[in-house]
């Protein structure tokens, strides 16, 4: 696939692959399987009231990461400091930051794998994310007896429960990154996971002192007993690396 010049990026961001078309890395069939997978990981209406991962172009974002090097600059690190959502006139996030040679090597290893190339195997062989997805999606099809995407949701859930947990975990992590990260990584202006969480980037507007110091009463959601009980079970995980910001 040809490299895109930098000034074509906004158009590329808008031009996500259509249903039935191959992606930047995945084949058309693999894209179909990935969409079916994402629809189980982050479902939307009617199963869930809020926007789902497929509608939010999460599969296309995962494919764009796998094919990051078909873009110039690669779709790895969004630019900064501001998006155009909170008062800035232009969207810096949409202008991705070029990698230098050092960073590019790391991302080539992460995405493409070490492939027996000596310069990539100083610490041993590495399986790239491209191969992880190719293998993982094929395994879902195999478990479905042909086409994972053609199975009903209940059967898909059963397949996922028995599937390679590392792959499902990787796909869920990448899907959440797209769903709850900045829209620019999704090549979509929609706010996706930010709509029902009230989240978003805040610069350059920031917050007023009053917003910092007082309860924001009208928008306050109440915590129910069931979620509180679940939260107590999960509490120790707040000690995981780098999670609790201080």
């Amino acid at each position, binding site marked *: 696939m040809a490299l895109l010049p930098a000034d074509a990026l906004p158009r590329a961001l808008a031009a996500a692959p259509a249903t039935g078309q191959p992606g930047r890395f995945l084949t058309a069939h693999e894209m179909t399987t990935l969409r079916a997978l994402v629809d189980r990981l982050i479902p939307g209406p009617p199963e869930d009231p809020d926007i789902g991962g497929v509608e939010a172009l999460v599969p296309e974002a995962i494919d764009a990461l796998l094919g990051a090097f078909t873009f110039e600059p690669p779709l790895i*690190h969004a630019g900064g400091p501001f998006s155009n959502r909170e008062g800035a006139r232009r969207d810096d996030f949409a202008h991705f930051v070029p990698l230098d040679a050092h960073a590019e090597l790391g991302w080539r290893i992460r995405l493409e794998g070490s492939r027996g190339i000596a310069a990539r195997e100083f610490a041993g062989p590495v399986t790239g994310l491209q191969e992880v997805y190719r293998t993982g999606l094929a395994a879902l099809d195999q478990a479905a007896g042909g086409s994972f995407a053609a199975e009903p949701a209940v059967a898909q859930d059963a397949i996922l429960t028995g599937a390679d947990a590392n792959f499902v975990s990787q796909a869920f992590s990448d899907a959440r990154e797209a769903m709850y990260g900045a829209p620019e990584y999704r090549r979509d202006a929609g706010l996706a996971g930010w709509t029902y969480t009230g989240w978003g980037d805040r610069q350059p507007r920031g917050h007023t002192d009053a917003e910092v110091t007082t309860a924001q009463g009208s928008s306050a959601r109440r915590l129910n007993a069931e979620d509180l009980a679940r939260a107590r079970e999960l509490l120790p995980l707040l000690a995981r*690396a780098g*999670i609790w910001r201080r």
Partner: protein
Amino acid sequence: MSGGREVVIVGSGAGGSAAAWALTHAGFHVTIIEKGRHLLSGLGTKAGPRTLFGNDEVKGRRAFENPDELLEPRTARSQDEAAQGIERSFVGDVNGLPTVVGGGTIHWDAKTPRFWRQDFKTLSTHGPVPGANLADWPLTYDDLAPFYDEVEQRLGCQGDIHQIPSEVLAQAPRTKQLPLPPGPMMYAAALLAEGARKQGLHPYPVSMAVHSRPFRGGRACNNCGFCSGFGCPINARGGAAISFLHDALRHGARLKHRCFVFRVRLDRSGRKATGVDYLDPHGRVRHQRADVVILAPSAIETARLLLMSRTAHHPHGVGNRSDQLGRNLMFHNFTLAFAHFAGDVHAWVGPNTTITIDDFCFPEKGAPARAAGLPYLKGGICETGGTLLLFDESDLYAAAPNSWGVAHKQLMRSSPLRAHIGGLSMVGEDLPQAANRVDLDPKIRDVYGHPVPRITYSLHRHEIAASNHFGPKLAAMCAAAPGALDGAYVPVGQISQTGGPGSDEAALAAGPASTAHIMGTARMGSDPRTSVCDAHGRVHEVENLFLGDGSVFASAGGFNPSLTIMALSLRMARHVAHTH
């Protein structure tokens, strides 16, 4: 006295930049060599630094400013594993700090507490602890105080001397008001502080290098909330690059980035450094000659570099005649405590942890300590009002197997661990142990072809006992906050370095929880037989080789270390200016 002499500084983080600034102004020709990328274009120019950092959680997870663990892995093992001859049990990121121009302070939370008098004289003040390699520092709080003052003024620290409890001022006396007033008090921290006061504790606004007012021509913080772990999108936070390096570069210091120093070169006598060898961005070997060599790449990398620089005169690493090089590695182990609230307490709005509570920094010598077979139990400051961000929240809810689907989305909507939680973390002192150390991994190499640092680390039982002693007090404080539904704590060691919850035994065997506080490995002392460098950071065995980072710490205190790193480095640089 400089006479245009050449200084090379390895690392552009907290210590390196402070030294570069002082020595440039003292007339030295300063070259800073930084391993990482330069992401602040305009730094050192009249136009001033721009930034590519934003309110972007994804970029931070993609090694934008942090080292890529595939290129620069570290390895780890426990003390028990080391005793069994296991070479390593983990390969990947072990407490990696940002590897960019500006170092760790590029995305620090900028808390700037001072160490206390007692921290510099731990051994003589409180006595020995079995299994710990305690030592006094070869300097006192009063030696460092003027440099604390100067660094705070330079960084633009906020705080209020009139709100600091008298017990704290007795341990860390100060004569000057902080240069900027406290910024807005985050709502969740205010609730927890109220709970603390009800428990008879003494919360007060923490000192931090977040600019609550426009400072030195820069903007004031606008409370975006993406602070800890994020580069500041508007450069309203002081740090190595903004507060020191920018000015040093404007006055003639030179910066070489993406250059990896792999060896300190010594003359034939082995007593004098002549410069450093490094790989340039194209992988070519280069040499930088210098009259004075200062190492400040962080405690783990300083030990690694000195070990890699061994010569016939220094067969076990430069400056390692004492066998202390790499040893006494200290982190901080955080005890967390939380309260849930029925309403939304929005802890992510504005700079976090705007309150500190220092009541647990004093050693407690009562029955709980005796029951643990220890002379005392000691905690650290409580950074009150921590924050969970959106992606991290989604990660927590995804931790259980098969937790995808509608259930996950429902948790994201109701947000029990983000919107409805207020919490704090106690910075637990980590006692030095000779067996907690950095050495060179015998097999694993980094992208440069050099041995990676191997971290051998286990918690001292004091850390476990202190966490379990202070934890319930922290939980009670949280429970006493107005509107709190509960109070709970998470002791240290419950989560291993690589993942899920484990037993106490597993916790003891596990490596450290991730922390950006890295100290020890080349401790300072007055006796060359038991320390690596002197009170000015000069390596005992080499007349012109100085250490300017957390490696020189003899104790970890219960305080964020960066301010102390900068103060020590500034003191070292002034000494170099007078003697070289």
